[in-house]
Each structure stands twice: as structure tokens, then as C-alpha cells.
């Protein structure tokens, strides 16, 4: 009978995706979490492919239906019920991600029962909206997590193992609250987020690597509920986003709404039931799709009152109905070009992304704007997921024949509220990420010991016109005369485009640093609560899962450090190797035990011990890149 240890070792190598052996392919996926449809893709044998469900369907409708018995239906079956059960069937939840009730506007056209909740850590209103269903109030984050869970299960079934991680795409114009909400949803679905990737950038990867393109490209991405324009420069394996702009509340759904309103007007209707509203919206969408290929579309329906609807919409009429929606996409185009300091003539190609770009009037308007026929040779519904999968494969550490570098930007400026309700910009829009910027502020009253900071995002000068991301207070400032304190506020935006803010009083040496959580985000406690609510994650499962994740992490860490010692051992300072090896032994010893806390502690101890070694290694690789320039020599202090 084999020993327990032998069993463990076998277990480790037999679980695909968890092994850290260099030759082993790590299972990673790209997920396009769309307003209307969602997809999952992966790189198989070097080629990015969309994973279908058991019926051969690639697209999962982003629709979630909650039943009173706790059952949750996602996709086609939920979509089929949307007219019968509109209140409990959530479509286009993406439009509510990181949004408060005030952001949503006219809720009467939507068949939901909205609940306004307080911002995290505050009383009153201002937090992310929730939707009341028979199964209780649901946050858009929970709704999105249901969609992600289905895609995760689909991928794990197709690939035969657990995923090491996923790249989740977001509209380039998503603000911090919307990005954070997306990341929270992935966490809730048990996914390890390798990166949040901007949708147009994902499309550019799929497109650019496919065509070995060089030059400036514009990506026009009109999805179900969001619009993005990104201007990129492609050259020798570098995808450099020069500027991004858009409208995170404009998409194909709005074209459906226009048809819906037209129907109401034509038939002199008002105050429809949720069922009738959903029915007409569904028919409006079908008409829109039909008008892509046909001159006219006939819309017939019987309302719950028995009233008969029978109208014919022509392409010309639809074009004039939707004219100003298309106009609304042209303004961001001009801004993006201006921000990139380019003109239309500099753009070599225009890539069309998103199902809504199939509308002939959209293609026509974009073609006219750029003076060239837009490129549509990749399926506009799939190109984002395909690109995300390619990036996921790279980020997971799988070797690929192509090596490329992606340089993306933050779409909206980040700033702080100053006197008189004005915004002081700290990080301007279109800054390449990751980025950080510090700014110093001072006290305005004698003996002032606290200072409130209000973090906002947007381009306008007034705080009230920007999005409020977080409010926090820096306490414990030593009492000084007005203007004597030096409070340094540091904004750090990571590669996911997510912001962290820290504040510190410099002059006195007293430090107080705070990491903020956006007011539209979820607190860790809320996420834990949601995880517990979710029937799929009983308490024991969660603990077992957490333990296993730590074991995987420990194995990866041991392997990485071992490899580093082998490769760059000469960079170590005296005694350093011994300290690292001691911590490695500690970690190896606790690994077979099932004490999660000990394991976590040993992991972070080893991590801490290797900080300077890791820095030295990176300096070495950087100095190689700069042909002999040694970055360690550049130190000032």
C-alpha cells in the first residue's frame, strides 16, 4: 500500500491545471461577460477557440431567472421565461454593475423592482442598486456571478480540470466601481482573475495577432449595453492603447428601446405591465435583427389586455429613429482621436466589435467617419472572448510562439474633491497603466487633526458631475498650525485598471495609510455573506477549497523559488540562501497538514524572505534588456 505522501504527490501531478511543472499546460480561459450574451474561450493547441455548451451553442444569453425554491436558471431557459416572469428574470445585469439607482434613470421602462441600498460603510443611499426577486434582493454582482459560474463549469467540463484562472473582459470605458463589481462577481463565482481586460483591447489582440498588423487601428465596439472606442498602435508585438473613450450606458439595448417607444407611440400605449414591456422589448430586438438583412420587419403581438399590435418597421424608419444614438457614438470617436493626437487620416484600419455593429446604419456611419470600409472579417460576437483567451494563456504562464506586450490605459481621470466642490485631477485619463501619482495637501485650520478625502472619477470640473468612488477620513494628524501639515495622497492604478488610495501625513513622521474600498463596491463581509448564501458553496466546501487553493499556491511558490535559486543563486547576499531555504523547509513541513492558517503564514513568510532576491532578479533581467545598464546603480539614497 503506497504511503500517504506518495498519494499526495500523485494527486498533485494528476490534477491538470494545478501542477506547476513547466511543460504542463495550465488551464486558463477568457470570458466575455456581455450585456446580452456571454462567452468562454480557451487556447487549445495554440489556437483560440470558443467553448460551446452541450447543445453546441457558443453564446450564453446573459439572463438569470430566480425561482422561489432557490433554483437559479441561466441562459436559454431563463431567456425563454423572460416574458412570463419578467420581475424574477434579470437581463442586461451588466448595465447595473457598480451603479446606484440615480444612474439608471427611467426605471419605469424596466420590468424590475429596484432596491436602493446604502453605500458600503455609510447609511442612507448611494450604494449599488439591487433587484428584488422571489429569492430575495439580488445585487448585479450576484447575477453576474451566476453567469460566470455556468461558464466556469462549461470550461472545466470541456477542458477536464480546474482552471488556474480567467481573464474577464470589461468595457474600456468602465469606471472603477464597474470594474471592481466585475472582479467581485468573478470572485463570487470561484474564479481566479488573472486580469480584467478591456474589450476593445481583447479584440485587437485577436485581430492583430491573426493578421500580423502594424500601424494605428481604431476599435469600434458597440455591445448590448456599452460603447467603447479605442485607438491602438500595433508594432512589432506591442499593442499600445493610445486612447480610449466611450459611453458605458449606450448599446444595442438602446436601439431596442427606440423601437419599443415607437411601438408605444404608434399604438397610443402607456403604463404597460412588466410582462407586456418585456414582450415588446423582445419583439423590438427581433425586429432590429431582422432589419440587418431585410428592408422591413413586421411586429405582431397580443398584449395582456387583449389588444393586438401589428406594425411594420422599415429600415429607413429605423435609421431615422436611431440616428441620434449613432451620433452619440461619434463624439467619443472624435475625442479619442484628439487625445491620441491623431487625425482620421492616421487610422489604418477600423475593427468592428459587438453584435450591434451588424446594423447597416452603424457600419455606414463609421465608414463615413473614417473614410474607409470597417473590418468585419472576425465574428463581432466572438472576437472579444477569443482575444481574452489568448491573453489568459499568456498570463497563466503557458509558453507561446508569439510574445507580445499589452500597454493599456485608464479611460477616465481620477481625482480628489478640493475646496468649493471642485475636482483636482491626480491621474489624467489615458495614462498608461499601471500608474501611480502622489499629491500633497495641507490642513486649513489650526489644530486640525483629521481630514476627509473624497475620491472621484470623471472629466468634469465639479465633483457633482463626476462619479463618487470613495470617501474616507485620515485621522491622527498631529495638531499644527493651518498649512503646516503635509498630507501626501497616493493613487495607484494596477494593471486591471483598479484604484488604491493611500494617505499619509509626512511632516511629522506620523503615518496613517488607508486603503479604500469604492462606495459602490462590496465589502469583504458582503462577499462572504453571498458566498454563504450560494447553495453551491456549503461552509465545508469553502474551507476545503480555500485549503486546496493555498496548497496549490504553496507548491507554485516552492517551485518558483527553487527555480530562482537554481538560476540566479549568485545574486544572493551572504546568509540569504540559508534564510530562504529555512522558510522553504517550514513551508514544506506544513504543506501536508490541513491547517490553513499555518499554511498561509508559511507562504507569506517565504514571500517576505524572497522580496530582495526577487528584486535583484528583476534588476538582472532589466539590465540585460538595456544592454549592460545596471538599474541598481541608479539608486539615489
Amino acid at each position, binding site marked *: 500500500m503506497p504511503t500517504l505522501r506518495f498519494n499526495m504527490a500523485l494527486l498533485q501531478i494528476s490534477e491538470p491545471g494545478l501542477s506547476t511543472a513547466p511543460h504542463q499546460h495550465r488551464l486558463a480561459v477568457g470570458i466575455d461577460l456581455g450585456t446580452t450574451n456571454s462567452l468562454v474561450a480557451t487556447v487549445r493547441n495554440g489556437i483560440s477557440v470558443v467553448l460551446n455548451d452541450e447543445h453546441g451553442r457558443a453564446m450564453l444569453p446573459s439572463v438569470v431567472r430566480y425561482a422561489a425554491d432557490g433554483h437559479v436558471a441561466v441562459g436559454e431557459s431563463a431567456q425563454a421565461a423572460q416574458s412570463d416572469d419578467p420581475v424574477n428574470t434579470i437581463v442586461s445585469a451588466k448595465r447595473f454593475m457598480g451603479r446606484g439607482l440615480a444612474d439608471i434613470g427611467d426605471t419605469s421602462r424596466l420590468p424590475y423592482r429596484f432596491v436602493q441600498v446604502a453605500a458600503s460603510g455609510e447609511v442612507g443611499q448611494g450604494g449599488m442598486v439591487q433587484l428584488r426577486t422571489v429569492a430575495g434582493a439580488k445585487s448585479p454582482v450576484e447575477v453576474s456571478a451566476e453567469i460566470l459560474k455556468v461558464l466556469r463549469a462549461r470550461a472545466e467540463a470541456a477542458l477536464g480540470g480546474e482552471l488556474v484562472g480567467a481573464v474577464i473582459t470589461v468595457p474600456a470605458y468602465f469606471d472603477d466601481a464597474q470594474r471592481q463589481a466585475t472582479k467581485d462577481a468573478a470572485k463570487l463565482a470561484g474564479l481566479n482573475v488573472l486580469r480584467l481586460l478591456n474589450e476593445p483591447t481583447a479584440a485587437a489582440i485577436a485581430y492583430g495577432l491573426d493578421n500580423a498588423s502594424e500601424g494605428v487601428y481604431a476599435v469600434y465596439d458597440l455591445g448590448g449595453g456599452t460603447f467603447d472606442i479605442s485607438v491602438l498602435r500595433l508594432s512589432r508585438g506591442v499593442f499600445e492603447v493610445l486612447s480610449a473613450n466611450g459611453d458605458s450606458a449606450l448599446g444595442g439595448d438602446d436601439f431596442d428601446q427606440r423601437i419599443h417607444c415607437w411601438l408605444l407611440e404608434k399604438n397610443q400605449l402607456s403604463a404597460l405591465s412588466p410582462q407586456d414591456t418585456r414582450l415588446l422589448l423582445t419583439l423590438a430586438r427581433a425586429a432590429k435583427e431582422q432589419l440587418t438583412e431585410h428592408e422591413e420587419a413586421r411586429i405582431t403581438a397580443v398584449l395582456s389586455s387583449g389588444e393586438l399590435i401589428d406594425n411594420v418597421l422599415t429600415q429607413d424608419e429605423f435609421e431615422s429613429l436611431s440616428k441620434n444614438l449613432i451620433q452619440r457614438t461619434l463624439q467619443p470617436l472624435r475625442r479619442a482621436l484628439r487625445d491620441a493626437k491623431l487625425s482620421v487620416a492616421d487610422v489604418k484600419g477600423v475593427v468592428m466589435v459587438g453584435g450591434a455593429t451588424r446594423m447597416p446604419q452603424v457600419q455606414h456611419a463609421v465608414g463615413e467617419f473614417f473614410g474607409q470600409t470597417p473590418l468585419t472579417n472576425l465574428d463581432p460576437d466572438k472576437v472579444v472572448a477569443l482575444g481574452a483567451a489568448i491573453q489568459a494563456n499568456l498570463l497563466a504562464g503557458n509558453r507561446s510562439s508569439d510574445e507580445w506586450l499589452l500597454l493599456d490605459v485608464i479611460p477616465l481621470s481620477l481625482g480628489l474633491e478640493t475646496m468649493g466642490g471642485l475636482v483636482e485631477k491626480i491621474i489624467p485619463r489615458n495614462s498608461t497603466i*499601471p500608474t501611480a501619482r502622489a499629491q500633497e495637501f495641507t490642513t486649513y485650520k489650526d489644530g486640525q487633526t483629521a481630514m476627509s478625502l473624497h475620491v472621484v472619477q470623471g472629466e468634469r470640473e465639479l465633483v457633482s458631475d463626476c462619479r463618487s468612488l470613495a470617501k474616507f477620513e485620515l485621522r491622527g494628524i498631529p495638531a499644527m498650525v493651518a498649512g503646516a501639515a503635509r498630507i501626501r495622497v497616493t493613487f495607484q492604478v494596477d494593471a486591471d485598471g483598479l484604484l488604491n488610495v493611500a494617505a499619509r501625513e509626512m511632516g511629522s513622521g506620523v503615518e496613517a495609510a488607508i486603503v479604500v474600498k469604492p462606495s459602490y463596491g462590496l465589502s469583504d463581509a458582503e462577499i462572504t455573506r453571498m458566498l454563504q448564501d450560494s447553495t453551491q458553496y456549503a461552509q465545508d466546501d469553502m474551507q476545503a477549497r480555500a485549503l486546496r487553493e493555498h496548497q496549490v499556491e504553496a507548491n507554485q511558490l516552492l517551485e518558483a523559488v527553487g527555480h530562482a535559486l537554481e538560476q540566479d543563486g549568485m545574486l544572493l547576499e551572504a546568509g540569504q540562501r540559508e534564510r530562504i531555504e529555512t522558510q522553504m523547509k517550514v513551508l514544506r513541513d506544513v504543506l501536508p497538514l490541513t491547517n490553513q492558517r499555518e499554511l498561509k503564514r508559511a507562504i507569506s513568510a517565504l514571500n517576505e524572505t524572497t522580496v530582495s532576491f526577487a528584486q535583484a532578479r528583476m534588476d538582472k533581467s532589466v539590465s540585460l534588456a538595456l544592454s549592460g545598464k545596471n538599474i541598481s546603480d541608479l*539608486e*539615489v539614497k
Partner: protein
Amino acid sequence: MTQGFDTPKNHFQLFGLTQSFQLDNAQLELAFRALQAQVHPDKSAHLPDTEQRIAMQRSTLVNEAYQTLRSPIRRARYMLSLQGVDTQEETNTAMPLDFLMAQMEWREAVADAQQARDAEAIGQLEARMKDETGKLEAMLAIKIDSEHDYAVAAGLVRKLRFMEKLAEEIDSAYDELDS
């Protein structure tokens, strides 16, 4: 313990460039990309947290250095700070009277063109503004690189700051036309 390059002495050295206001942009770009290809967080997304954190810090720094050198006004400000010269953009308001008068006229012209929704007039103002900015930058190159006259250079940076604000106003005038 190695401190990494948290506070590099010199952005020029970071990119392997000679310390000079006149700059080969293509060379800067190549060096920037070569560096990011090494330190970008995407390269270490599969590695332990420590390495991801270091990568984020370094990539941030390389971005910051690149942005500083790429923009003429920021490059000048940075080079002067290396010489211990403060450009006093917030405190020194003693600008030549004719320069201030010209600035006032510019701004009024931009406001008028915006009011009249005259895109062509804004375009002309923009071209003139760029021309003027180019002249100031050419003078900066002489003052910093050849004459090492940092006091005069600081005055030119203050003037450039006015031009930068003007550029922002022209930008918002365009935005206004779009809406």
C-alpha cells in the same frame, strides 16, 4: 538589501539615453518598450504575489519615467529639478507684461471662437499655439543643453505652462463643439 529602483536617480539612464533636452523620441520609445517587456505585470501574472507586486511597482515607475521624458515641458521641469532648480510655476507670477497680454488675447480668441462655434478659427488658434510652443521648446533646448542657463530655462517652463493651459482650453472648446 537592494532597494530596487524605487527612486531612480535619473530617468535618462533608466532608458540608456544621454541626458539632454533634445531627445530621439524613437529611441526613447524603443527603450521604453524593451523595459516594459521585462517588468510589465503581465509577465509575472503567474508568479507569486511578491513578484507581482514588484512588477507593478517597477512597471509604474517605467511608465512614469517615460511620460516625464516624452513630454517636453515635463522633461524640462525634470531636468531642472536634477540641477536643483525649482521652476516656481505656482509661486513666481512675475511674467513679462507683453507675454501676459498675449495670453489674454489668446484666451479671448478661443472663447470667442467657441461661442461662435467656429471650428476653423479654433483650428487656426491651435496651429498658432503649437507653433509658439515649438519656438519655446527650441529655446529651452539651447538654454538647457548648450548654455546651461537654468534660470532662463525655468522662465521658459513657466511660459510653457501657460501654453499648456491654453491647449487645454482649445481642447475643451473642441469638446464643446462636439456636444
